[in-house]
């Protein structure tokens, strides 16, 4: 007895305590490293978003000059029967609206200031008059975009000659940055003061419609086949390998495919949403198949057995019972795949969807560009105004992606069942 007791040495020797302390310190360090790794990623994300937001706020604004225009001296006539906006603008141009603006601008801002009113400013006035003819009577105050040079000078950059003028006009209250919601309604332009995002956004929408119309049915049907009917053989293995691999092929390869195949078949539809949508559909389809298979797999076999037991055919089992139950999961996967396609640029770059499109596309075969491509094209421009416009376009794109992902999460939480 006493022998055994003597053999038990105290465990918590000083050396042990020191080792333990060291091990616990290592533990704390390790945990801190883990936390800081995540916090680093989050910090980068926040930094990225804040940078874009800070720059982007400027993109939703436009530097404008205050120009009071007195129409009483030179009355403009608007024929009541002219309804089309384009006709009204043309008629106003013929009546010398351009000169009226020039004269009034010179009176209010001086010669130097008037020279810095954007050369397309009269068109904005004409469009406003077309929308509201009562504007063409008496004295009105218009805020008109400046030239790109003065806008840069107002922001404190650019040529030194314009900066004093900008300061002087700003002090008089005739020069200011105003909210520019027109950014969301206009299309691309060479002048950042006049550029807008709607053309690219509409191109994106048209492209996404094509992508969805092709990728969703094909993806869902392929998922149903693989999960419900495919026999287990080498052929099915090949199918699975090729779908899994397609999901991981770099997107630029799909661009090469689109260039070599789609543009070879339809050479006249270069830079059309149709071709872009088809290319993106091939890229999105594997994502939908994989998500769809997981959703179908999650439907319990008892549902199938029950349906079969009451006499449903295999096709009825799948289309009347399995598919409706798997649909929320499939839709979630589809939305995530579509969000990826919406942000994709590289394949579209290769098939030539980088045209300068100054009016929104009217159909699936018109020349178009897409939102990420517009960002890429603008990012190449050196004008300061385009830097802000680019960030603003990025904000628009991120908002759309956020909405889509939010919808996917909502669908998942609202409809997905745990069996």
């Amino acid at each position, binding site marked *: 007895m006493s022998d055994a007791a003597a053999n038990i040495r105290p465990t918590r020797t000083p050396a042990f305590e020191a080792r333990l302390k060291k091990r616990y310190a290592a533990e704390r360090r390790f945990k801190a490293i883990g936390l800081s790794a995540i916090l680093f990623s989050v910090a980068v994300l926040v930094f990225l978003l804040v940078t874009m937001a800070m720059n982007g706020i400027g993109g939703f604004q436009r530097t404008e000059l205050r120009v009071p225009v007195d129409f009483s001296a030179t009355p403009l006539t608007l024929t009541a029967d002219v309804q089309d906006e384009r006709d009204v603008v043309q008629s106003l141009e013929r009546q010398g609206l351009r000169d009226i603006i020039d004269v009034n601008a010179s009176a209010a801002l001086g010669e130097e200031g008037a020279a810095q009113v954007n050369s397309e400013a009269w068109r904005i006035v004409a469009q406003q008059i077309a929308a509201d003819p009562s504007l063409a009577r008496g004295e009105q105050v218009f805020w008109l975009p400046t030239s790109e040079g003065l806008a840069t000078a107002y922001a404190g950059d650019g040529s030194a000659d314009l900066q004093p003028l900008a300061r002087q006009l700003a002090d008089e209250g005739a020069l200011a940055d105003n909210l520019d919601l027109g950014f969301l309604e206009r299309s691309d332009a060479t002048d950042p003061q006049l550029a807008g995002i709607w053309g690219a956004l509409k191109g994106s929408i048209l492209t996404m419609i094509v992508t969805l119309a092709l990728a969703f049915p094909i993806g869902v049907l392929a998922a149903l086949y693989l999960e419900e009917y495919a026999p287990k053989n080498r052929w099915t293995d090949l199918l699975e390998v090729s779908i899994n691999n397609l999901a991981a092929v770099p997107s630029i*390869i799909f661009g090469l495919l689109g260039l070599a195949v789609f543009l070879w078949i339809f050479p006249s539809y270069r830079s059309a949403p149709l071709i872009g949508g088809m290319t993106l559909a091939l890229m999105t389809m594997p994502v939908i198949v994989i998500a769809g298979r997981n959703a179908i797999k999650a439907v319990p076999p008892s549902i199938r057995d029950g349906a079969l037991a009451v006499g449903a055919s295999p096709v009825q089992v799948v289309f009347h019972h399995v598919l409706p139950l798997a649909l929320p999961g499939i839709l979630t996967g589809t939305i995530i795949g579509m969000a990826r396609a*919406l942000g994709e640029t590289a394949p579209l770059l290769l098939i030539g969807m980088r045209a300068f499109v100054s009016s929104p596309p009217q159909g699936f075969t018109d020349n178009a560009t897409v939102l990420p491509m517009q960002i890429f094209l603008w990012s190449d421009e050196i004008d300061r105004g385009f830097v802000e416009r680019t960030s603003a376009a990025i904000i628009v794109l991120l908002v759309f992606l956020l909405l889509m992902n939010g919808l996917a999460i909502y669908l998942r939480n609202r409809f997905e069942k745990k069996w």
Partner: protein
Amino acid sequence: MSASTLILLVLGLGLAGWLVARSRAAMFRRASENRRIASLPVYHAWYAALWIVVPTLLFALLWSGISEQLVMQQVLASPAAADLPEFGMQRESMLAEARAVATGAAPGVFNAEAAALVEPFEQALTRYNIIGLVVTLLIALAGGAWAFLRLKPDFRAHTRVERTVLTTLLIASLVAVLTTLGIVASLVFETIRFFGMVSPIDFLLGTHWSPNPMTDGSNPDPDRYGAVPLFWGTFFIGVVIAMLVAIPLGMMSAIYLNQYAAPRVRTWLKPTLEILAGVPTVVYGYFAALTIAPAIRDIALSLGVANPSSESALAAGLVMGVMIIPFVSSMADDSIAAVPQAMKDGSLAMGATQNETIKRVLVPAALPGIVAGIMLAISRAIGETMIVVMAASATARLSANPLEAMTTVTYQIVANLTGEASMDSASTLAAFALGFVLFLVTLMLNIIALRIVKRFREVYE
């Protein structure tokens, strides 16, 4: 007659067939003694509709391909086309312009010579539109009549329709295989043409890359197509720099999320991390070019580095690494979570601390999955295009200095395909050859990674 109206017409005819067949089947049912027929009326309806819609759509698809060429042929045969320039861009653009006016896509011609072509285009378009429409209607009628004549009380429309559905499913799943084949075929075809001009040995082992897009395909200088600097740049940016960022950060994030974070923290942090993967690459590219690259240049200058590039490999690589973090972390997270709890409990019971357990038990056990995740991440990084297009450089350089400008395979694919070069020039074909190399490498990485994941899963499940 646009394609969409044609499709609407076909669908309308299909609907009519559907309704007619359904009412006919319902009539059979009323007439039969026990009010039973072999298939429900709705299957008769679908049978008829399929017979109308499928052949007509197939024809319309075929026709949209053929008619374009037929129209072009007729226009080129017209006297007005004799004045066209023989070849080249101008001819193409004039034809396209006249076509746009004739279809009403453009308000008027820009080029006076194209005006003469509008009329022949209009004639040809009308003619082939009418032919197409008539044939479509005939096919729809024939299909509908054939289906309608077969409807009988004992006709098993049900099995026919279901067989069609199953065939459709099979065809849909074949699209994936076809896409893979299409990718391989288009890449292989152009690559072989390229290797007819530049030998594969020069391409794969040469160290000088400066393709000249202006030379035609007949006689390229093989010394200009050595792709080694491209492979090196891709490897250096996508594998060395990006992985130096992504692997440690991704691994540690996964370990923290999986082992330390409280469930509530985890539900917030994990999606936040995944947002990083959802940000479009063009945004990362812009961020790299506008914010990171100048910052790196300034830091390098202040450290006394002479002439750091403003398009440094470091900027592109760092941003790419950040983008890859969520891929590494989610794969690592899954693999660590798949390690049986018993292994972890065993280690903890022996008195190991949490981090000792993680380092000595969990990570080694999860290693195959983690390695597979890293391989997928590498495949993603070397195929990444927009970040390098916007932040890396066009100059091909063999250098191990991260502050120097470097180019990558994807950058050169984009550069050589978006320039002025014609489709047959060596620089265009070189882009396809680069694409083929990229495809093969990523394919290998993906297949090995997927195999590892599969085997790994089988071990623990």
